[in-house]
């Protein structure tokens, strides 16, 4: 049947004063919604899982507080790169999906039953949380915070709201999804056959849009694509010694005055203090490890310094102890960092003094900074002044 929607409308249901639009356009159908929706669902699933990984690494539950894995060394770089890339890829998918199902917003009667009202409410939560998560995350990568609340806890909480409402939506729509899963599924076959080529064209266009936004941003973490990095907030080649910076020494309140006469305090059963010149005479190690930021950019670098475990052993720190690292920075949520023993004892974890063959510049943490494998950038503490076994 190919009746335009207007002719199916029953005038008796029309509410006075509420203009209900009619949709005579094509492709507002369940097959299009299923074909786009499953890609969107996959992107959101990747985004949720990698987001959870990032949350646990930064705010470990007490059970994991001293046992987070320090390997693979590229783990966080991959997972957070995927988090931001899947979120960006989901933007065109979400916009097309919502365009496809938009006429359902005006379905009549507005509410048929309590169950129907709850279902519509859950869809409203799904749409709101999906839009909020993708765009708040995108704005965060550009360090733009137009909202009055704090980003991290709300982005985290709404992530649960999104995955929960998505699961509920999948449960409600399971029969429709199954009926339109394939080109030859019964539901798909009952749709007008002449929409097929148009639908494939829209799906190809959606794929092109996903490809375009991915290729022009992924270079901020996937270095081979850096020449195509045109729209990402970071570029691997921009930053002192080819490494971008989040927090400068000036912003952290670390002045030349503050680092003059710097000594590192290492706490444990045999606490000691050590000067920068003395640190340079301790056996130096080299490690190639990435700085991988929560905002999605990452860049590998060559670090030279002293193994953290060698410094801790000299103070007699117990092997299994949590380590507290304190920075010279005056203010900021990451002035004090707690490091599980798994990182502190990893031979790759350094108190770095040099970056890419040069002395650390102030913005990269002079005189000394932590570099550990598989850790978010905000926990790679700069301007270290104390390390203590807890």
């Amino acid at each position, binding site marked *: 049947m190919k009746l335009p929607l207007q002719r199916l409308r029953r005038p008796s249901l029309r509410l006075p004063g509420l203009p209900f639009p009619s949709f005579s356009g094509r492709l507002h159908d369940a097959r299009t919604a299923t074909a786009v929706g499953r890609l969107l669902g996959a992107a959101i699933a990747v985004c949720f899982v990698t987001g959870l990984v990032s949350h646990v690494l930064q705010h470990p539950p007490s059970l994991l507080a001293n046992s987070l894995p320090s390997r693979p060394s590229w783990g966080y770089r991959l997972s957070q790169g995927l988090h931001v890339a899947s979120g960006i890829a989901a933007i065109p998918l979400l916009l097309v999906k919502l365009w496809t199902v938009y006429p359902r917003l005006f379905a009549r009667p507005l509410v048929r039953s309590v169950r129907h009202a709850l279902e519509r409410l859950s869809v409203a939560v799904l749409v709101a949380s999906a*839009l909020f998560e993708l765009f708040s995350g995108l704005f965060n990568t*550009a360090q733009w915070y137009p909202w009055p609340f704090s980003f991290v*806890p709300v982005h985290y909480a709404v992530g649960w*709201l999104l995955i*929960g409402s998505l699961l509920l939506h999948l449960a409600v729509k399971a029969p429709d999804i199954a009926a339109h899963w394939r080109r030859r599924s019964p539901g798909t076959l009952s749709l007008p056959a002449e929409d097929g080529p148009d639908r494939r064209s829209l799906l190809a*266009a*959606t794929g092109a849009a996903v490809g375009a936004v991915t290729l022009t941003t992924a270079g901020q973490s996937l270095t081979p694509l850096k020449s195509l990095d045109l729209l990402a907030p970071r570029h691997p080649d*921009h930053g002192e010694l080819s490494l971008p910076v989040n927090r400068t020494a000036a912003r952290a309140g670390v002045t030349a005055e503050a680092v003059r006469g710097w000594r590192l305090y290492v706490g444990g059963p045999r606490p000691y203090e050590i000067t920068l010149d003395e640190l340079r005479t301790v056996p130096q190690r080299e490690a190639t490890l990435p700085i991988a930021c929560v905002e999605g950019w990452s860049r590998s670098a060559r670090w030279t310094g002293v193994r953290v475990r060698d410094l801790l052993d000299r103070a007699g720190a117990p092997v299994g102890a949590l380590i507290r690292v304190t920075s010279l920075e005056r203010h900021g949520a990451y002035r004090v960092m707690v490091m599980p023993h798994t990182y502190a004892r990893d031979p790759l974890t350094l108190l770095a003094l040099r970056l890419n063959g040069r002395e650390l510049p102030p913005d990269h943490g002079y005189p000394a900074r932590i570099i550990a494998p598989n850790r978010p950038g905000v926990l790679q503490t700069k301007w270290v002044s104390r390390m203590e076994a807890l």
Partner: protein
Amino acid sequence: MRGRGRGNRALPVFRAAAGACGVALMGVGVWAAWRGDDPQDPWQVVQWLAGAVLVHDGVVVPLTLLAGLVVVRLRARRAVRAGLLVAASLTAVAYPVLFRPGVPQNPSVLPLDYLRNWLLLLGLTAAVTAATVLVRAWARRLREGPRDS
């Protein structure tokens, strides 16, 4: 339909379980925002969630539908629709780097000429769209040519 009998019994249970899990996970979200480690003002969060829907459903989609009214009348509507979708997606992703107010914290944040890059990408999208339209029209003429003459 194959396996219908077994599917009919198992499916409702599985759906109900998945739906219940979904509701529970939504509960985790509400609890995390309201009572978690760093509780936030729930009213402000609700305002921003509702605002996102209002802007999308009230502005973005109506504008898209208006554009659609024009595009469906074009002969090359599929290619033009694809070009507009790519351009709109690039613009949505570029919005924060294009319009972020204030000076970035340091030179490695937002280091590129984003206006130039965005215009370059829109130009490229338009060029690829135009090329697709021309190639298709040329191929059609080649196919239909003998009949015309």
